[in-house]
Every structure is written in structure tokens, then in C-alpha cells.
């Protein structure tokens, strides 16, 4: 009986899970090996006798050295972090307030406003970025982090609002009513009663918003120009791809290090993320 259970557990749970983890993480393993591989080994075709895809005997830190000494990689990390955090905060601020209004207040056109906010999420970036460039110019924001901090919310706010709306809907109306009977104003009830309950939801939309801004490429490419202002994704691709020569080692090293901060954020918040999302979709 126990034998059977063990066998079943491996067959139906452990082996599939191991396969999943393997496939999802293999590219990362590949990137790690590449970033430590000396250049000489990078140029071996797959059918060469000495092709060693999974290991290298002569690991080198050269690519990391290049990344930090020859490029502004450190700066790019700081920039990306600043931009992602600030735009996430702005979007959360707007999204939480708007989500609350749309989910819990009665006012004319509430439904259509919600739909409109959602529809803005559908407008393709490729259509927007040229008119946006004009706006950025008019506000004299070109080549400053603010050009991104103010444009990223365009795709973050709809997302946050939508998630928060779901979350607020799930919180029972009675909570607020009790507070108001006790004499709290509507404003205070929202600030001190409802929003604290919604913290897990705020966290999870914050995490996704952060990831999306960390990921963005086109706006960052077009609106920033000085090397020291660039974000990781744009900086790495523009300085480590030289015409028809790729700096593979450094490129992969940059990609890996570029995902570390987000990975850390996630490892701390993944629990909240899961519970936050749960709340937001229950309603």
C-alpha cells in the first residue's frame, strides 16, 4: 500500500514537477554557463567533438569584469530600479484610489468608466510611442528618468485598477458601514479600514507592475539617449551587440544580473503575491 503510494507520488507529482523545473530553468543554467565560458569555447559548433554544452573547464570572470568596467552596467541597474519603483508607486497610488471608487462608490457612469480604463490597456504601444515622443519633448522630459516614470503608468494603471477593483469588491460592505456608524467619515473609513485590508492585493499588483516596468523596451529605447541614463535592457543590447559581433558572455552576464533584483523582490513577496491575487479574483 505504502509502496504503491510512493510510486504514485513519484509518477504523478515529483517527476512532472522536476521536468517542469528543469525546462523552466534550463535557459538560466545555460546563461550562467555562457557567462563564465571563455570566448574560445563559445565558438564551437554543436557537432564538434569537444562541444561541451553543459560545462566549462576554464571558467572566467572576464565577462563580468567587462560588464562592470567597460560599460555603465551599475548605473543602468540603479536607473532601472529607480524608474521601476517610482512608476510602480505612482501606478499603485492611482490604481488603488480608482479601483476603490469604481468598486465601492455609486456614481453615474461608474461602469463605463471602468471599461474605459480597461480599454486603454488595449491600445498598442507601437501606435502610441511616436505621439508620446512629442509630449515628452513638450514637457522637456527627454533623456530623463521622468520620461519613463510618467509613461509607464499608462500600461500599469489599467492593470492595477482592474486588479484592485476585484479585490475591493470582495471586501464586505458591512465593514465600512460599521465604521461609519461609529462616526468615521467615508474618507477615513476608506483610508483606515478598507485599504489596510487590501494590502495583499496592493502588493500583488505592485509586484506585477514592477515586473512590467522592469521589462519595458521600446519607450526606454526611444526616450533615453545618454549612456548613463539607460535602463538594463536597452543598455545591455546597445553596448554589447556590436554590429555583427555579439559579446555573448557579457550579454548573458548582464541578463542574469539584470534579473536578480526582481528575483529577490519575488522571493520575499511571492507568498503575499499569491494571497493577494487570491483575494482580488474571489469577488
Amino acid at each position, binding site marked *: 500500500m505504502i509502496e504503491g503510494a510512493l510510486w504514485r507520488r513519484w509518477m504523478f507529482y515529483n517527476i512532472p514537477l522536476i521536468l517542469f523545473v528543469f525546462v523552466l530553468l534550463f535557459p538560466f543554467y545555460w546563461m550562467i554557463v555562457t557567462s563564465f565560458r571563455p*570566448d*574560445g569555447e563559445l*565558438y*564551437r*559548433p554543436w557537432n*564538434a567533438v569537444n562541444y561541451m554544452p553543459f560545462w566549462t573547464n576554464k571558467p572566467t570572470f572576464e565577462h563580468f569584469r567587462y560588464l562592470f568596467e567597460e560599460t555603465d552596467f551599475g548605473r543602468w541597474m540603479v536607473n532601472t530600479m529607480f524608474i521601476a519603483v517610482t512608476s510602480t508607486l505612482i501606478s499603485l497610488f492611482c490604481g488603488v484610489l480608482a479601483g476603490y471608487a469604481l468598486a465601492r462608490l455609486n456614481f453615474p457612469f461608474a461602469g463605463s468608466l471602468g471599461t474605459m480604463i480597461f480599454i486603454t490597456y488595449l491600445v498598442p504601444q507601437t501606435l502610441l*510611442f*511616436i505621439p508620446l*515622443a*512629442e509630449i*515628452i*519633448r513638450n514637457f522637456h522630459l*527627454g533623456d530623463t528618468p521622468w520620461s519613463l516614470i510618467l509613461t509607464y503608468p499608462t500600461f500599469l494603471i489599467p492593470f492595477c485598477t482592474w486588479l484592485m477593483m476585484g479585490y475591493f469588491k470582495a471586501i464586505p460592505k458591512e465593514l465600512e458601514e460599521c465604521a461609519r456608524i461609529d462616526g468615521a467619515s467615508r474618507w477615513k473609513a476608506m483610508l483606515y479600514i478598507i485599504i489596510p485590508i487590501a494590502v495583499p492585493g496592493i502588493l500583488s499588483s505592485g509586484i506585477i507592475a514592477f515586473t512590467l516596468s522592469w521589462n519595458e523596451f*521600446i519607450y526606454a*529605447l*526611444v*526616450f533615453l*539617449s*545618454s*549612456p548613463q541614463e539607460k535602463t538594463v535592457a536597452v543598455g545591455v*543590447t*546597445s*553596448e554589447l*551587440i*556590436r*554590429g*555583427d*559581433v*555579439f559579446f555573448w558572455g557579457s550579454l548573458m552576464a548582464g541578463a542574469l544580473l539584470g534579473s536578480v533584483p526582481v528575483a529577490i523582490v519575488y522571493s520575499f513577496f511571492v507568498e503575499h503575491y499569491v494571497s493577494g491575487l487570491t483575494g482580488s479574483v474571489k469577488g
Partner: protein
Amino acid sequence: MVQAKRRSVIKLAGSAAAVASTGMAGILASGRTPAYAQQKTVHWLRWVDFVPASDTLLRKELVPEAEKELGMKINLETVNGNDLQPRATAAIQSGAGPDLIQAFNNNTYIYANSVVDLSDLVEDLAKREGGLYKYCRSLCSDGKMFMSMPWAVIGAMISYRKSWFEEVGFNAFPKTWQEYHDAGKKLKAKGRPIGQTLGHTFGDAPTFTYPYMWSWGGKEVEADGKTVAVNSKETLESIKFMTSFWKDACDEGGLAWDDTNNNRAFLSQTISATLNGASIYIEASRKPDQYQTEKGKPMKDDILHSPLPAGPTGQFGMHLMQSDMLMKYSKNQDAAKEFLKWIHTEKNYEKWFISQKGYSTPCQAKWEEHKQWTEDPVMAPFKIAAKLGQAPGYAGLPNGKAAEALTKYIITDMYAKAVQGMAPEESVKWAEGELKKIYSA
């Protein structure tokens, strides 16, 4: 309207004296008082060079020197070559951005409305340095104005393995497509095919397919620039030949290669020849210990260059042309011109040219004589790259429509479709339809 007025003021000031920006007109034009002469800033957008040493030279030596001698600030920005176009477009549409933007090939025509005429500068330089090649002239000037200042041509030549070609009986590089086909067939049988991309990549794909088509007598449009002429017996022949050439002699992986793949394939010894800039050879000579032949000798000693083989109507080449556009929206046009003049003086430009080690061919005839070309015989064929070039859009002008056809990869896709199994008649008809949409508009 206001802008137009400003511009005429600048023009007036510019023709009066180069010091306009310190004069009253300059103040009016820029709309603010010049607190210091240092305030003039020229923002120069270029691609990240294939040759890292050249970027270092510009950054660490030439730019600081220019800043000192010209008393201005120069902001050199480098981006990935593929990303120059979105930057240029956004800058033009929003009316602000880099003062000088590098353009590739006939992209200049796409931006023709938004650039300043550089005729005086270019003609002056051409006169000093033995004349401008026809190829470079046609790409940068529409006959009325110079939309950009020619910088250099990145010659596209076939890099090939000397010893491997010798092994299959070709002591000299094949002269015609038929010979190249035969050599490639023998080489492919030994697991050393010819490598060529037919993918969507701005460098190595069109520089192969256009000259290839021309050498068979094909052309996209008649000299009037209106009548699409691609659907001809000659083009059809070229497509038929290409399909067998591809199957018999080429690495069939090439359909999706970008500009980097053939470099890697060549350096890892999986292909015997490929059309490319000199970057393969340069990379191999930079690291002779790393790139070695199967016999354990440095690979660089086994690489030679050759122009593309000849077809029934001759031998052609198309190369990557680099030029610098001075943008109309720029508030520092005079400073930018001053800088262009400075960097194109023989003394300064020569430093850059040498750092390229032959990778780039200057656009003026005088440089053919430069001793750099005698230093390394392997690089010598690049000397005349610019001289032999023909521009896309032939037999018409390389204008905006030709640029559109080029950036839509129509000629390249015509061959790619046939190679993938479409009937040659079908693929040429497809290309004709697409080209007609462009040229009739």
C-alpha cells in the same frame, strides 16, 4: 511657421559668418543668451562600431580634442545599429533629439524632409580628396542637395577559406556564379558549405541579393523610377539558379540568419565562405590563438577576400553606406557643421580610418592610395569597395521608394520564398506585386 522663420534666420546667420551663434542672430535663433561659449553642445548619434577600438578612439581621443579645439561640448551616443531608425523617427516627429544622426544606405531618402543640405561641406571635401565615388554620391544626394555627409562604406566581400577552396581544386576564387556553384557543391559534400543569409537583416542579406540580381540582368525598376521591371526572364533565371545553388552549395540554416550568424559559423569552421564585412578576418586576427584551423594554425592566415562572382551581365556589389545627417530641428546646426568639418579633415579622419583596419572604405578617391591598404594584402580588395558599388533602386534612383523596397526585404524575400519551395514564377510575381504597390503610390 515660427520654426520656419527661425530656420531662415539661422541660414542667414550661417552664410554670413561661422560665428553666428555668438552674434545677435544666433541669440535670436537659439532663443536664449549664450552664457558661455561652452554651452554649444553637439549630440552625435552613431551605431556601436563593429571595431571596438574605433569607438574608444572617438570617445577617448577625437571627441575630447574636438571639444578643446572647437570650444564646444560633444555628446557622442552609440546604439545598436538596428535601433538607429526608431531613434531618428521619434526625434524627427517630436522635433528634438540628436543633432547628427547616422544613416545607413539610402535611409537618407526616408528622412530627406527633415535634414539640412550639406552640399558645401561635401563638395568641398570631395574637391580636396580626389572626388566622391558615384555610389556614395547617389546615396547621399538626390541631385539637388546632400541629405547627409558620407562617412564611410563598409565593404561587403566574400570571406573564404583559401585552403579549403584549394582542396576542391580552386586555387583562385571562382570568377562566375557557375564556378562558385561548382566549388560550393564540392565543399558542401565535404561538410563545408557556403554560408549566406536570406533573413530579415539589414546588412548581409540585401548586400547579397541585390548585386546577385543585377549580375543576372535583373532590376527592380526601369530608369524612370516608375515602371516595375522585376518580372523579367533574367530575374527568373537568377531565381532558378539560386534555388539549385542554395540546395547544392549553401548551408540551409541561412534562411534565418542575422548579420551575426555567419560570423560565428565561419569562425567555428562550419562554412567555407560567406559574404560579409571584414569583421570575420578582423576578429580572427585579434585572437589568433583562439581561432585556429583544423590543422592547428591561426585561422587568419587562411582567410582571403573576394568580390561577389560575376553573372551574365557583369559583376556588382552593394555595400553598407554610413553617412551623417544634420537634422533640421537641431538648434546647433552651425556647431554641428563645424564639428563635421573638423572630423573630416584628413588628419583627424585618418586616425579613425586606421583604427578600422580596412573595415571601412572612405568615400573619396584619394584614400585608395593610403598606405593602410598595402599593410595587409588580405584587406586590399576592400580598397575599391566603394568604387564598384551600385545603389539599391537600380535602374532608378535610390530614393525613398527604393528604400521602402529595401526595408521591406522584397528582393531578399523573393529569393527566400523560392528557396523555401515556391515556384520561381510565383515568387517573382509576388515581388512584382509588392514593388508595384510601392512604385505606383
